[in-house]
């Protein structure tokens, strides 16, 4: 029996061969048809007349138009969706994140970061494209609400209580991330914010000093925290609630467990529109976190970086990597699990410790893009069906026009001219269908939300639920390169479907064609 890997390899090769053959045939067919049209231009008006004088050809034109319009609209909606998703998932992520691999401390052997934040700051401040940096101390903890009964929920909904403790320097953070807007009010029409979230959302008292000691009456806590709005909803937290945080310290070993805890008052909530962040993040100050963990050796676990332009991310990554590595602030091989004798390129090496925001969401972005490709492929089947209709119509036309083929032969028409006439018919049907479909797609894409409103008015049901997709309206974004590819493939399918009937016509015996009744 063949191993799975072998089967996968065979199917992959088969896929490439078939895909390559189809693309090759399509490209060859289109080029040959265009050559015929130019070389035998004299019969082009006859092809056009054949295409325009039969009502049934309209069926093929409409079929192609619907197919093209469907593919373009679906792709445009998926483009818009991906674009909006990129904005949404970008929510909490900085242009670059530097995550140096920790190392064992020289003196006591405890793990710590390779240097202090100030050492990194000295280097990063003068690095090209870097506009601002901020430290973050990221740790993991369990968060217990005050309601004891809720503790029983831990067994059932454990993941709701596991939070990411993010220690920040508020002043530095504001310069790099959109922290100010995360703790600002949720706007009525803000994309990504559900009605329920808007209702439970409570702002911090003082946005200028968001983590200042919270002056809730009766508060006995020494620290404040900001929680994600979805987390607040999930475990029923309110502004002023006192919660307990339990974690483990970095010094915990197999022999000695150290599980410090801390009580904090909730100073307010934040909303980044990124579901994952808003449901598992708790913001505290770095000193508060260091104190909780009794951690003195390290004052950060990652550094977030704002660039002058995200387009420079790759260049900045290499420059930052070179400088930090030269200063001994990046490990030699990052987190690589590859054997040490396997060489890594410079970019690969830095990619392991310096991430762009897209690197961190690569799987999700790839999944959505893959989904767009699959959807486009499925909808393109409509165009293929239209091509089959065109094939059937042209085959009927060749039979019907047998005597005309004989007439063309008496006028000196060769097989090439007769082929050209029917290819011209196919080209006329495909191009007019594609043009009509493109126009239709542009109109539909521009009015998707009006169409949705009308469907809701007519049927009482909406196609698009904003709360499900965290978007306020159906997004749509036309990518003209994509449109050109769709039109090219449509033209290819149309030409391939007309080549066989046209070839059959060109092979007809002139004298017998002339006698055809």
């Amino acid at each position, binding site marked *: 029996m063949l191993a799975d890997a072998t089967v996968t390899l065979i199917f992959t090769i088969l896929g490439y061969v078939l895909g390559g053959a189809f693309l090759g045939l399509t490209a060859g067919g289109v080029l040959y048809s265009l050559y015929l049209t130019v070389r035998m231009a*004299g*019969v082009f008006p006859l092809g056009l007349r054949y295409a325009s004088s039969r009502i049934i050809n309209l069926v093929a034109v409409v079929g192609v138009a619907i197919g093209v319009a469907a593919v373009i609209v679906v792709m445009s909606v998926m483009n818009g969706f991906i674009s909006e998703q990129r904005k949404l998932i970008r929510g909490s992520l900085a242009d670059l994140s530097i995550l140096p691999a920790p190392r064992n401390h020289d003196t006591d052997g405890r793990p710590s970061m390779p240097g202090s934040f100030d050492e990194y700051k000295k280097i990063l401040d003068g690095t090209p494209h870097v506009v601002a940096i901020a430290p973050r101390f990221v740790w993991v903890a369990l968060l217990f609400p005050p309601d004891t009964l809720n503790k029983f929920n831990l067994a059932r909904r454990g993941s709701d209580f596991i939070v990411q403790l993010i220690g920040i320097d508020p002043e530095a953070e504001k310069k790099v991330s959109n922290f100010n807007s995360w703790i600002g009010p949720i706007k009525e029409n803000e994309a990504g914010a559900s009605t329920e979230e808007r209702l439970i959302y409570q702002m911090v008292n003082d946005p200028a000093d968001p983590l200042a000691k919270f002056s809730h009456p009766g508060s006995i806590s020494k620290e404040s925290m900001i929680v994600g709005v979805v987390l607040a909803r999930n475990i029923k937290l309110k502004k002023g609630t006192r919660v307990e945080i339990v974690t483990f310290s970095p010094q915990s070993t197999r022999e000695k467990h150290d599980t410090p805890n801390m009580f904090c008052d909730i100073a307010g909530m934040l909303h980044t529109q990124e579901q994952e962040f808003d449901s598992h993040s708790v913001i505290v100050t770095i000193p508060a976190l260091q104190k909780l963990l009794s951690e003195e050796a390290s004052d950060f676990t990652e550094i977030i970086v704002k660039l002058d332009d995200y387009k420079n991310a790759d260049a900045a990554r290499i420059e930052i990597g070179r400088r930090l590595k030269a200063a001994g602030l990046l490990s030699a091989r990052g987190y690589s699990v590859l054997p040490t004798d396997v060489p890594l390129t410079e970019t690969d090496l830095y990619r392991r410790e310096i991430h762009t925001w897209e690197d961190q969401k690569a799987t999700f972005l790839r999944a959505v893009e893959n989904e767009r490709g699959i959807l486009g492929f499925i909808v393109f089947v409509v165009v293929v069906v239209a091509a089959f209709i065109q094939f059937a119509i042209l085959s009927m036309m060749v039979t019907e026009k047998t005597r005309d083929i004989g007439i063309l032969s008496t*006028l*000196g028409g060769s097989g090439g001219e007769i082929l050209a006439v029917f290819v011209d018919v196919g080209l006329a049907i495909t191009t007019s269908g594609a043009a009509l479909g493109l126009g239709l797609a542009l109109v539909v894409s521009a009015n998707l939300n009006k169409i949705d409103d009308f469907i809701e008015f007519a049927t009482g049901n909406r196609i698009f639920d904003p709360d499900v997709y965290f978007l306020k309206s159906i997004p749509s974004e036309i990518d003209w390169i994509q449109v050109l590819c769709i039109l090219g493939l449509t033209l290819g399918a149309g030409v391939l479907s007309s080549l066989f009937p046209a070839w059959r016509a060109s092979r007809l015996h002139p004298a017998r064609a002339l006698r055809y009744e």
Partner: protein
Amino acid sequence: MPAMLETRDVYHSYTLGALQVPVLKGVNLTLNEGETVSLVGKSGVGKTTLLQILGLLEPPTSGSVFLRGADVGRGSRSARSEIRRKNIGFVFQFYHLIRELTALENVLLAGRIGEPLGDFLRKGAAERDRARELLKRVGLEHRMKHRPGELSGGELQRVAIARAIFSQPALLLCDEPTGNLDAETGASILELLFGIQSELRSTLLLVTHDPELARRCSRMVRLVDGRVACAEEYRNGAAAARV
């Protein structure tokens, strides 16, 4: 000077399943430059088949066809098409016009076959003028934009004649051109056809069942049992038998 068209021992048979049905059984025929010849014979004797072989629409099963001394009967299909386009015009009993095109476009089509884009753009206006001129010549200046469905039998045949002479062919092959017309219209069509033949000095081969019409040609060829049985030459109404 070589003959306009000559056949030597042309045999032709059709295949019906396993059967070979012989139609032409050794036809030897010569058509000289500028002469008018009628081809007569009973139905099914092979007149139309011979016409199609002479018009290079079909290669003979065996034998040769010479056009101005060149053996053209067995060339490739595209080579025969090229020769046909430049040298031969056809007129049929049932007109054989393309019903989607107007009278003008039907005539114009004869000039546009085989034209690449450059010629199509360069010569377009001149060809259109020539097609108009030809339609005027056959008396259809008022019918140029009419489609075949809107024309009478006589008018259709005039369009077909205009189309046949578009490229000033040296050889005109007519298959019962008046067979589908009343006597008066037929007579006017023949006047037109012979008039044009005399203007162009083309060689005219006319397949017909009508003895009167056959006698209007300078020579009559009779086909009997797939062979040329006799040829009669007419000069000022006198006939002399030539076997």
